[in-house]
């Protein structure tokens, strides 16, 4: 049975092809979905790719649906201000041994970027990737696939 990956996207991604101040012109939600789909097909992983403008829905997906998947890629851009609400839900997943990687298209620490608080904490299974454009997602997916194949361990 193949592994199942959940990729969750928050708001502001629907407009990523616009002049949103990002460096990765062409990184629209559709290109991200396409690249993730291609990579998961190559890796033999079943992909469930979702996006929402609604904070509550995002939280529901993490807290309720996350446990049905083997790994989660979380792209919460736009929800950064409410990050503390997600921490318990993310920790619940990582305590089940599920790898979670938080990703951003742009470098969220670049000069001028808002200070951000990371969504999750206190788990060796959580990862973080930012600033690689679409590759932020692909690196996150490859990392999870590698962990699932190896059976764990850093």
């Amino acid at each position: 049975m193949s592994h199942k990956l959940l990729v969750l996207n928050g708001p502001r991604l629907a407009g990523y092809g616009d002049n949103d101040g990002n460096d990765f012109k062409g990184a629209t939600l559709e290109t991200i979905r396409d690249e993730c789909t291609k990579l998961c097909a190559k890796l033999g992983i079943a992909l469930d790719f979702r996006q929402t403008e609604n904070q509550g829905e995002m939280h529901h997906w993490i807290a309720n649906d996350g446990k049905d998947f083997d790994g989660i890629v979380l792209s919460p851009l736009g929800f950064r201000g409410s990050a503390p609400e997600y921490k318990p839900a993310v920790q619940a997943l990582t305590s089940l041994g599920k790898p979670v990687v938080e990703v951003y298209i742009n470098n969220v620490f670049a000069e001028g970027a808002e200070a951000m608080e990371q969504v999750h904490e206190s788990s060796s299974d959580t990862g973080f990737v930012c600033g690689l454009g679409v590759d932020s997602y692909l690196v996150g997916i490859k990392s999870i696939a590698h962990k699932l194949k190896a059976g764990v361990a850093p």
Partner: protein
Amino acid sequence: MDNTIYVINGPNLNLLGKREPGIYGSSTLKEIEARCRKDGARFGADVAFFQSNHEGVLVDYLQEAVDKADGVIINAAAYTHTSVAIHDALRIFKGFKIELHISNPRARESFRHVSFVASAVDAVIAGLGVYGYELATEVMACRLSGKQSSQS
């Protein structure tokens, strides 16, 4: 090879494989280097690995990279959280730069939550274990070879 990637490693990373394997894994830096060289070669990139426990030596490597490297991956380890000198040296290097950590510093003690490196690089990869080195090398090599994404 067309492109050169400098992978610069900070203090205590010479003890990889022996130091806190539950956090840092059981691979040595030499083993990681060998895997990264293979990954880089797939995209025509030469990978040069460096490690020092001394802040000034890391600055020297970064200054050397200005003329000798096309991309820099830096795991400054503990100096990530203290070194303005490394921040300034990174700003001099104009190629693509990735900050890399084996563990996720922001998931650990609060004194690791500040990074003087993050605002001087293009991208950050953290908490993906030692496999993060290979992923960083692959995405860097791919980018330097002109590809849009690292689908391979």
